[in-house]
Every structure is written in C-alpha cells, then in structure tokens.
C-alpha cells in the first residue's frame, strides 16, 4: 500500500464524514453539527471529554477540555493537538481514570468484530474513565460480524449492552436502535437505502461507568 501523506489523508478522509464538517466549520461563521452531535453535547457531564477515533476535533469549538485521540498518524499533520495511539490499551495507560465523558462515534477501526471483540474495545476504553463517566458509543450493525438471518438484530445488540453492567460495570442508561423500514413505493419498488443513520451508526448507546445516576435528555 502506498504510504504517503497524500494517500494516507485520502484514505482517512474517505471514511470519516465528520472530518468534512471540521473543514467547513473552520471557514464559516457558523458551526454545523448533526442531531446526534447535539444530543451528545447536550448530555455531556462537566469535566474532561475524550473523543476517540471519530475525527473528534470537529467538536473543538463546542466541548470544553476536549482530548482527541486517533489511531491514524496523519491526523497529527492537520490537527497537531491530536493524541495518536496504536492500540486501544494505550488510552488507559496515558489517561488512566481521567475522563468524565468518553465518546466514540462510528469508529471504523472498532468494527469488523463480533460482540466479544466489541467488549474487548470497551474494556480498554473503561480504563480511561473516571467513576461516573458517561460513555457515548454508536456504530452500524452492517459492519459487525453476526448471522443476520438467525438473530433478532434489535435484541442481539440490546442484550449485549445490558450485560455489560455485569461484565464491565458499564450501566446502560439510554439507547436508540433503529433499522431500515422497507415498504414498496407507489411503483411497487423498494428503496435501496441502508440503515437510518450511517453517519453516526444506527445503534446508539449511552453507558455510565460504575454508577447509574444520570438522566439523559433526548
């Protein structure tokens, strides 16, 4: 694979729609965010916030005390404040029990795993959370490994999230799980749309670490 800044930037940018927002927001006299961003911003706890693997610098103007962590060194070239890590377990080593909010929005490197793989990622993230930390996590069902014919997708992911209370002390305090609804149009054809939110992910969770006190406002 070609390893130049130009190629690495194109590859990085192709999969990260929020990077586009950052490019635009820098030049405009207003800030564009989407509805899920607003939901997160409205529900953040006061304190330190980490956005991991989600081009989180686009939230810089809106989130106090923001730490942006990425796995792609190219990010450092255009956003020098980014912290670059190789493996997720480095987050906890550098920021042990540091954050009041931990945000991951449709992080492509998190995907292509089964639920056990996802839980391993969460375990790494947890090490950087303070007790009471809010953990906003969203992803797409279409990039997870599971038998799509033999599981009810809704309960497959919801039950996973609920059991994290026992395994990782992450308490599910809010969720939003939506799938495409397919109905024929007037001409008798189906649309070819994917799930309702491929930008942020159609499966959205908010967890609270160790406690369960926060009330999330939709």
């Amino acid at each position: 694979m070609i390893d130049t800044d130009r190629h690495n930037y194109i590859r990085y940018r192709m999969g990260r729609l929020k990077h586009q927002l950052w490019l635009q927001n820098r030049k405009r006299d207003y800030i564009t965010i989407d509805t899920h961003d607003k939901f997160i911003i409205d529900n953040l706890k006061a304190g330190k916030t980490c956005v991991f693997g989600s081009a989180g610098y686009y939230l810089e103007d809106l989130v106090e005390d923001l730490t942006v962590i990425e796995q792609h060194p190219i990010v450092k070239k255009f956003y020098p404040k980014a912290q670059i890590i190789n493996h997720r377990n480095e987050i906890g080593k550098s920021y042990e029990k540091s954050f009041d909010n931990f945000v991951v929005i449709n992080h492509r490197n998190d995907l292509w795993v089964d639920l056990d793989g996802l839980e391993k990622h969460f375990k790494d993230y947890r090490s950087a959370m303070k007790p009471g930390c809010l953990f906003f996590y969203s992803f797409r069902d279409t990039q997870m490994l599971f038998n799509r014919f033999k599981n009810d997708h809704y309960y497959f992911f919801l039950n996973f999230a609920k059991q994290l209370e026992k395994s990782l002390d992450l308490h599910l305090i809010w969720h939003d799980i939506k799938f495409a609804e397919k109905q024929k149009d007037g001409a008798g054809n189906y649309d070819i749309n994917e799930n309702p939110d491929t930008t942020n992910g159609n499966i959205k969770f908010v967890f609270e670490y160790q406690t369960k006190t926060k009330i999330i406002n939709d």
Partner: protein
Amino acid sequence: MKHTKKIKVIEPTSLYKWAKNFKRIQDRFYDKQFKLRRIQQLEDFCSLNNFKQIYHIEEVKLDLDLSKNIFTDKIENADLILVTHQGYSRFPCNGIIEQINKWINQCPKIYLCLNRHYLNINNEKINLDLPDDYQKAITSWLKQSLPNCIVIDNSRNYIDYGMNFTWSLPDRHFYIEKK
C-alpha cells in the same frame, strides 16, 4: 459552551456520500497492480461460459476486462443478467427473492452478487431452518426461497475483517438458473 459562532444542526443523512468510482479510488492506494479474485472470477465466468449478451446491473464501476460487445442494454436480449449493484442486497429478503423471480422471467440465467453485511437490512424474522454459519445460511436461504431455480454458490468463504473490498464488489456470488 466555549464557542461564539451560531450553531446549525443538520440531519446525519445530509452528510451521506457515495461514489461510483469508490473502487477506482481504493485501487489507487496500492502501488503494485492487483486484481480482486472476485473480479477475475466474474470475468472468467462470463467468458468461459461464452455468454454473448450480458445485461449488467452495476453500481460501483468495476472496469471488467471483457469486450464491450458482449454487453447489451436491453434485458430482453440478454443471455445472462449480471448483478453487481449492491443496492439489491439492501432490499428486504422477500424483496430480493421477488426481484430474482422477476429477472428470471426476463432471462433464465443470473449471476447475482450480494453483500452479506446488508442482507436482512430491515431485521425481519426469517421463517426457515438455516445453518448457524452465516455464509452457509445465505446459500440455504436462497435455495429454499427459489424452489423453481438451480442455485449454485460460487462464493469464497472467509471472515470479512473489512479488508476484502466487499463494498467494491459484493462478496457472495450465486449463479441462478431457471429449472
């Protein structure tokens, strides 16, 4: 809030992007020339079986190494319908079967490529006895749902860790012929 600018809130769908040249862009990330095994398989299937009038339903540009003369833009003239457009994988399962039956009545031979990650996009209950192995389950679903057809699975089995160009050319390949 630390900002002074006004905030505009948009729907996440406003950010959607998709390019038909997605594969061409991905190809340029590699310094050595390469060819996807699935592309070669498609080309071999079409040429070695001597198809002369292929109706190709395409989305992402694949740049198949086949003579332009063997493609037709009229489905009624086709001796093979080649479907690489992954939009059909995002139909509900019964919609995919309905579409195959519609095609098979227009042309008795279909080469259908499905993206495994999109199937059952709307989370409907599948009332069939299917294997636990998802790849085998896809084949079983097609075979059970198309009793009027011969269904041959031409796919290569692998676990998709996102490195297999599935979004350029869908991964599950089926030859379907009317009985």
